[in-house]
């Protein structure tokens, strides 16, 4: 059986569900090894959180360089692992860090790379949704190790328990991977809400909020959803840029997307139109966002959302 390596994905000191998604895709025709990159002495604890999904082995590399030399050190370690162990593919989560690591590994190992896959078949054919989700593309890496970054929340994860065998590997990070030095790191400010790109439900507000996101946030919280915003709203300073959904912001693909007071400019649609179900609240019955809606309410979000929030809360209690 061939071997596929995945880069275990962590939020703080906990393995994310994305890791199980990567493993699920990789396990379709291979034995899966999860690579855990850890600080000195932290490997065992991190590896212990890699316990869901079809993962046969965990490979732990400890080095202080992963914290101080970021993407370059991670890519250097993974390229060395690939040279030693010759897997057929490497699957990595498609976020800024994961894509950059994958890009450097592709160069270092002279391998092809496919980014933002929403599915990976047993023969390593990757499915991508391109041009704002309007076109489906199937492609395959044709040189070296198949390096594929997979968009979080796209593959239904097999979350069954696993008890992978843990192996420690000692490596020396190359000097060329230590040219940039991280002197301080601040984790993202965690509200009580789920991360935008990983959330099952996203409720977004746009120009129609007039800067008042309370109704949007209230409805999001009743559903346990993440809050997104259109570019108009973030450019106006109404909501942080980190929450922007769209072509120049984040691409989300949740089970449910609720667009409130968002007209649906093509730039916004590019970031959300692959959502499984889309609901819309907008005053303007002609707003183009209604073309995407499975369910649309023509109405004032300041009237509709509080009523809906109350309804959801009543049903849940």
């Amino acid at each position, binding site marked *: 059986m061939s071997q596929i390596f995945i880069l275990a994905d962590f939020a703080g000191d906990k393995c994310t569900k994305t890791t199980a998604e990567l493993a699920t895709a990789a396990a379709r025709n291979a034995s899966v090894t999860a690579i855990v990159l850890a600080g000195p002495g932290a490997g065992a604890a991190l590896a212990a959180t890699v316990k869901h999904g079809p993962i046969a082995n965990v490979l732990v590399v400890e080095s202080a360089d992963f914290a101080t030399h970021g993407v370059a050190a991670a890519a250097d370690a993974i390229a060395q692992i690939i040279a030693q162990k010759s897997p057929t593919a490497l699957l990595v989560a498609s976020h800024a860090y994961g894509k950059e690591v994958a890009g450097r590994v592709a160069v270092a190992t002279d391998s092809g*790379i496919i980014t933002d896959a929403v599915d990976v078949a047993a023969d390593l054919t990757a499915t991508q949704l391109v041009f704002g989700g309007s076109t489906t593309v199937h492609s395959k890496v044709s040189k070296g190790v198949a390096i594929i970054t997979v968009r979080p929340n796209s593959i239904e994860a097999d979350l069954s328990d696993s008890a992978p065998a843990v192996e420690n590997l000692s490596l020396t990070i190359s000097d060329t991977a230590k040219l940039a*030095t991280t002197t301080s790191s601040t984790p993202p400010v965690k509200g009580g809400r789920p991360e935008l790109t990983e959330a099952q439900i996203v409720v977004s507000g746009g120009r129609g909020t007039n800067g008042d996101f309370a109704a949007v946030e209230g409805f999001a919280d009743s559903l346990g959803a993440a809050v997104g915003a259109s570019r108009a709203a973030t450019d106006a300073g109404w909501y942080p840029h980190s929450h922007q959904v769209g072509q120049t912001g984040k691409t989300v693909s949740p089970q449910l997307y609720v667009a409130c007071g968002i007209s649906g400019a093509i730039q916004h649609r590019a970031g959300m139109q692959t959502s499984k179900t889309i609901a819309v609240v907008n005053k303007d019955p002609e707003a183009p966002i209604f073309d995407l809606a499975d369910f649309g309410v023509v109405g004032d979000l300041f009237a509709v959302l509080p009523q809906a929030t109350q309804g959801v809360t009543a049903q849940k209690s």
Partner: protein
Amino acid sequence: MKIAVCVKQVPDSWAEKKMVNGVLDREGVDAVLNDLDEYAVEEALRIVEAHGGNEEGGANSVTIVSMGPERATEAIRKALSMGANDAILVSDAALAGSDALATSKVLAEVIKNGGFDLVICGTESTDARMSVVPAMLAQRLGWAQLTFASMVSVDPAANTVSITRTTEAGVDAINAKLPAVVSVVEKINEPRYPSFKGIMAAKKKTIDSRDLATVGVSAESAWSLVADSAPRPPRAAGVKVTDEGNGGNDLVKFLTEKKFI
């Protein structure tokens, strides 16, 4: 200080894009300078302006580096009209359909031989959206990688660059010795509009057009191949109700039916 800014000409984000023979059809659509590259051009100009400007014959310069069809000169002129000094365009029929690996290889070769101290890129192109070329450039050049910068500061005397890296994983302070590859996020600045004077001046600026042989790299076979592509079917029309005092409840009913509650 010599700064190279990598830019790409992309289809206008409003244009309808389609695939022909496994690659994006670039012929039939309006092409513009990639939005996100304007922030890179602006940041390069601000850096040289903070250190004595980029007057002709001075110590500082901003060179636009691009790969694409001859037609990409239109996008390059926009970057020049913002205030960059000159440009290099690598154009060769053998490069059609190139992916990020091929692009980074060509750009790295041009940069390596250009005597640059710093490369600045946008975080991604709005067409391919891979977001990997800056990291690949750093790897190929063996230069420091400082990417996703929401703040850049260069100290020419100390020969260093520091950035604030802002991603979904948090905020990092990163520094390095030059030479380095930097990518900038869109909140870093507000790109200037080209002035009339800038537009007129740009017409006289040099765009050095090179083919692969001049650059000194050979075209590679593709690292990945597209098997097929197809437009996704449009979404089926949904239900639309008008709020007459019960719109919120209607929404809750729909969400309950779909088992979201």
